[in-house]
């Protein structure tokens, strides 16, 4: 309802509802859109569901598609769409029998670190720096799960390692208190607070692919696709980035994707993602601060960062173009957006 209020709309204005969420097994409810129907417009609109770790990014791509299709004159019924991701606050894992030989999440997250950092030439403490920057940014975000007012570089560096080499302070927040009420109107009529969608892309490879690298091919292709759609050169025209990172180590990887996209072959991550840097990353929120699985669709948050959207929590200067990167699996699946605070010509 808050999303509708923010857009100045009612359910009567909504033509399509897209629900994205974590795997149904996480909650123990099969196809939960069915019982959530009453909360999603009283049954008046269609619903459909993505299930993936980066579903926020991919879910929002779908109504974006509808919108672009309708603006191009070939109109399927949806003209406005309301992507939403639901919280995992009632996460009740009922998986009765775990599959054999399954890797623990931390085990999945840990190996990439050396493999990611070494080729990039990133310093060993890069993850701590990223974590510090994000925790500090989160202090400006009233919706963040964690507000660590006394966070310091030393505290992060000293926190325990649940899985070597990842420190606890470098990991995302997961849990019952997560409140991933992500709301937005994707590509609304723009008169107020709209974030205009310049491009959306998704890529997924085989699970057997060499996903654990500093530059996953799917990420590169996805970036190439989304920037081509947006018709933008990242370095020149993107003001801010909102990046899904389950642990701080993947932030340099995203930065690398960025560098490649803007043609900086061979460049290493620079300290440019602070609020006053060339490319502020995660200006107000990020996954490490509250991680409702699947609701991590940073796309939705990112829209708020354009200075538009429900949050209007833009940092100190108005951001006009935003690159959004979400991923799932072991850096396997990628969904990206480019949005703009100003209506494209």
């Amino acid at each position, binding site marked *: 309802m808050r999303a509708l209020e923010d857009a100045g709309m009612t359910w009567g204005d909504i033509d399509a509802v897209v629900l994205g969420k974590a*795997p*149904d*097994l*996480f*909650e*123990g*409810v*099969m*196809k*939960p*859109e*069915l*019982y*959530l*129907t*009453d909360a999603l417009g*009283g*049954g008046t*609109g*269609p*619903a*459909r*569901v*993505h*299930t*993936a*770790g980066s579903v926020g990014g*991919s879910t929002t*791509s*779908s109504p974006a*598609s*509808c919108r*672009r*299709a309708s603006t*191009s004159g*070939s*109109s*399927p*019924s949806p003209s406005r769409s309301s992507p939403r991701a639901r919280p995992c606050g009632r996460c009740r894992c009922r*998986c*009765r*029998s775990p*599959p054999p030989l399954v890797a623990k999440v931390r085990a999945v997250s840990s190996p990439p670190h050396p493999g990611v950092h070494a080729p990039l030439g990133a310093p060993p403490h890069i993850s701590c720096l990223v974590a510090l920057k994000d925790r500090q940014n989160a202090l400006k975000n009233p919706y963040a799960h964690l507000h660590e007012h006394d966070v310091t570089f030393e505290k992060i560096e000293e926190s325990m390692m649940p899985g070597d080499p990842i420190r606890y302070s470098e990991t995302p927040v997961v849990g019952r208190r997560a409140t991933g009420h992500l709301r937005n109107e994707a590509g609304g009529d723009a008169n107020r607070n709209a974030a205009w969608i310049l491009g959306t*892309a*998704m*890529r*997924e*490879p*085989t*699970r*057997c*692919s060499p996903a654990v690298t500093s530059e996953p*091919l*799917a990420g590169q*292709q*996805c970036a190439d*696709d989304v920037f081509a759609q947006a018709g933008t050169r990242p370095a020149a025209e993107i003001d801010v980035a909102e990046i899904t990172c389950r642990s701080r180590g993947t932030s340099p990887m995203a930065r690398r994707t960025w560098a490649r996209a803007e043609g900086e072959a061979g460049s290493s991550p620079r300290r440019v993602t602070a609020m006053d840097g060339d490319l502020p990353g995660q200006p107000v929120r990020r996954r490490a601060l509250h991680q409702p699985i699947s609701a991590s669709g940073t796309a939705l948050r990112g829209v708020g960062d354009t200075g538009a959207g429900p949050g209007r929590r833009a940092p100190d200067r108005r951001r006009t173009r935003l690159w959004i990167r979400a991923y799932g*699996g072991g850096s*396997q*699946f990628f969904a990206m957006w480019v949005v703009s605070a100003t209506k494209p010509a």
Partner: protein
Amino acid sequence: MRDVAIVAFAQSKHERRIEGYNEIEMMMPVVGELWERTGLSADTVGFTCSGSTDFLAGQAFSFVTILDAIGPWPPISESHVEMDGAWALYEAWVKLQMGEIDTALVYSYGKSSPGDLPKVLTTQLEPYSVAPLWPDAISVAGLQARALLDSGRATEADLAGVAVRNRAHAKDNPKAQLAGDYTVEEILAEPYLANPLRKHDCPPITDGAAAVILAAGDVARELNDRPAWIRGIDHRVEAHALGARDLTRSASTRLAGEKAGVGDAPVDFAELHAPFTHQELIVAEALGLGDDVTVNPSGGPLAANPVMAAGLIRLGEAAERLSRGEGDRAVAHATSGPCLQQNLVCVLEGEG
């Protein structure tokens, strides 16, 4: 609206239990058949979308593994819905409407044999007050059937008649799991499974998979001499609570049918995803299908019901029949949820 058509359809031989094959192995030959028929490949198809549920596999993110059935390397543009493949087709159709791609692969699968399907389906019920009572899917459908009989709009013999017709139709479907010659009297003589439903009123439990290729405009004409054009497609949902809606009517099907334009011209045949006999009567009425419309010439989900694929199969069966010239205009329907809660309706036309 851009002209988009179903140009190819393939499905597995549906069986009660496909032993020795996992979902990837079940899916691979089906997709492989489509690659062979269209000349497309994972590299060249514009978009891929699948529909499935983790609740059959008992494993979160199971669909990510199944993607290997199509060999996605280098990475592909891909999406998944935790719904019947018919909704995956809807997403692919939207993508095609954008005009940025010309072809799409849609696939779905359901391997129900490893679990207790009626109980698995219980988990899609409201999780606080209904699901904890563990009403199984057949009992829930039985409530709906009883309501329909009590309304006076159908009899148990009508239900048996639906079963007899679908079993007979299925004799011409080499992929069907159940087929044969029965009489209404024979079926009525059988005991109840969940009063008033008898075994023949219920869908079989099936392992199976299906896939379609969508294509737009001239590309569709290149891939198929007589593509099945999607003239209208829409899906609607209604209240979840069984007590909050008239179970004897399907308001969401009616609305989706109107939006898709079912009544705009005569319909030659319909493929309805109505897993239970009484549901076929409810859906046919909601779509306004007259007695002259052949319903479920394939035998429908009573002949084979691979959960999550049975809706997509309705679209594929209808399209294939049109492409063979066995009709000019068809309606395909898919459903999701208990007692026909959510419904998708698609109007297909052969080029004529």
